[in-house]
């Protein structure tokens, strides 16, 4: 086994050769290397960071406007949450809970412009889920009242008022709304008719349009709990879902556990979950797809960066083949020469990383904060977590180490005399 002293000598000579080569190397070669590695880091982080930002915003929108921090649904096979009185009583007495909203859901077809149709002409209609809410409770739990883009939100004394999700009407969503048919251009004060599966109808007055960019929410319509309970023919207060908001994000899982334990104790197995688990499957799939795209783009970037460093080091080492042979003839060990090339590659990588990181955090992040990518489902900001960036920096360093080592090794391992004589 090589002694520590030997390794120290190799490292010292490698550093000596690398530093001299870097200091007196061609400026254009140095700039190209740094520029390519800077671009590689950006390629490695920006696309993935934007996709992360989009998925994060999608998740955040859903959490803030729909599920809250904790989301409760009925046990499997049931329409309504079990024993809500006990549940609400527990929630009322839990310190960190800021608000909760019990909701009643009912499927319906909404019709518009039905008063002006005659003969074969059918009114504009669309399927929706009517969500019966207590407006005050909803305001303490979600940001729905803040997401009104037209008109106003529901008030507690409203009876026939309805707030439409932006996907149900034209004029609020760019591109596809996710709904096959819309009601068309509906104005505040217009009447819409809800038609239920039993044939009953009820006429609502549109008081507002809500746009959250969370498709699950934007495809719903919001009415007062009292009216929907009556339209559903319920004799008592029943709830299809409950959203809970807390002021302590670190204690969410313990609160879920507390509620589950309480449920288990009374044999009520409501489906209690954190926001991330309550996310619609499509969104979870989207997150996975975006992560995959980000990784693919990143892998391509690493490959391009790796090949570039490889080629530059290979050309550099090839053009110095004779010098390498002479150094070997003088007794400079191959390992020291190979290490010197690795040091050079790492040096350029580190400079590229420093510049890249500065551009990422001091320019691009701020730029996307001010000018997010506006997508139908979210606003894409550049999300750069510490672990995310660190991992990509490590990947780039390791790649550069490999792409510095291989070409240097290929050249340096050649016969010393052949290198000297250039044959």
């Amino acid at each position, binding site marked *: 086994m090589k002694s520590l002293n030997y390794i120290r000598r190799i490292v010292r000579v490698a550093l000596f050769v690398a530093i001299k080569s870097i200091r007196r190397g061609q400026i254009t070669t140095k700039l190209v290397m740094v520029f390519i590695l800077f671009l590689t880091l950006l390629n490695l982080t920006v696309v993935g960071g934007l996709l992360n930002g989009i998925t994060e915003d999608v998740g955040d929108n859903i959490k803030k406007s729909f599920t809250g921090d904790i989301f409760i649904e009925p046990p499997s096979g049931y329409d309504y949450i079990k024993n809500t009185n006990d549940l609400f009583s527990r929630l009322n007495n839990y310190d960190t809970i800021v608000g909760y909203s019990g909701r009643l859901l009912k499927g319906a077809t909404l019709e518009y412009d039905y008063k002006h149709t005659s003969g074969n002409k059918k009114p504009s209609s669309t399927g929706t889920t009517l969500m019966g809410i207590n407006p005050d409770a909803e305001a303490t739990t979600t940001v729905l009242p803040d997401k009104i883009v037209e008109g106003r939100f529901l008030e507690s004394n409203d009876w026939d008022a309805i707030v439409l999700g932006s996907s149900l009407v034209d004029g609020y969503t760019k591109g596809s709304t996710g709904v096959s048919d819309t009601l068309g251009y509906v104005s505040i004060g217009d009447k819409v008719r809800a038609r239920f599966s039993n044939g009953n109808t009820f006429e609502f007055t549109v008081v507002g349009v809500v746009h959250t960019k969370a498709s699950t929410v934007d495809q719903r319509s919001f009415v007062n709990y009292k009216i929907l309970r009556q339209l559903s023919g319920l004799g008592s207060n029943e709830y299809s879902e409950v959203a809970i908001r807390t002021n302590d994000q670190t204690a969410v899982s313990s609160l879920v556990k507390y509620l589950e334990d309480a449920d288990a104790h009374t044999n009520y197995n409501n489906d209690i979950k954190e926001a991330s688990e309550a996310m619609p499957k499509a969104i979870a799939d989207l997150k996975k797809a975006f992560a995959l795209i980000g990784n693919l783009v990143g892998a391509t970037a690493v490959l391009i960066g790796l090949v570039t460093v490889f080629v530059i080091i290979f050309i550099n080492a090839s053009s110095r083949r004779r010098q390498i042979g*002479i150094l070997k003839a003088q*007794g*400079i*060990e*191959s390992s*020291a020469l190979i290490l010197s090339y690795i040091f050079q590659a790492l040096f350029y990588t580190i400079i590229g990383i420093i510049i890249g990181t500065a551009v990422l955090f001091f320019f691009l992040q701020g730029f996307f904060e001010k000018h997010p990518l506006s997508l139908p489902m979210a606003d894409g900001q550049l999300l750069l977590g510490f672990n995310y960036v660190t991992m990509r920096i490590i990947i780039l360093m390791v790649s550069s180490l490999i792409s510095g080592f291989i070409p240097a090794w290929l050249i340096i391992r050649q016969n*010393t*005399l052949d290198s*000297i004589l250039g044959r």
Partner: protein
Amino acid sequence: MIRIKNIVKNFISGTVVTKVLKGIDLEIPTGQFVAVIGPSGSGKSTLLYQMSLIDRPTNGEVFVGGQLVSNLNESEKTIFRLENFGFVFQDYALIPEFTAMDNAILPNLMLGTDINVAKKMAEKVFESFGIAHLATHLPSQLSGGEQQRVSVSRAIVKKPKILFADEPTANLDSVASLQLMKVFKKINKDGQTIIMVTHEENYAQMADRVIQIKDGQIIKDTMLK
């Protein structure tokens, strides 16, 4: 002392085998200044490469100080060269990005010498060769003669047992060549063994011994002193 026994070197190109060295035996005692001369293609440089372990002979053995060294692996040969041999090449072979001082201290750094000690050692050699004022110059800023003196400094600063020189005056004018030969004479006087390949008869005559090679064989071995 260096001794070579029945050194054979063949170059193979396809089916053609060229016999460059045809079984050379030679013994050079410590402190001797030997000039190897011969016409182009006679095998004199090839002989130097075999003796200095830069190349591997097809057959035969090389002994240095009684130790068989021709069977060492590449890494061991590199270390052996570092600790025992110095080289001077025809075209000086200095690293262009390194100053004269950087070029000269590198072998000592590889030997583990402290950088300041290595610099002092190089300064001393530079002073004795009259090039101390050129220490911070890059090779491109030096004349051929100055570069060759830096090259010799690099070779001897680590105090090698044997100094090998391959046509060291080939690229120099007569004044610089003579200066270089004086340097060789001076270090040889201090006990340095030198094996120099040259095609210039007049410089060979400055050595202690002249070995003449033709067609891969020693045809004449003359002791001048």
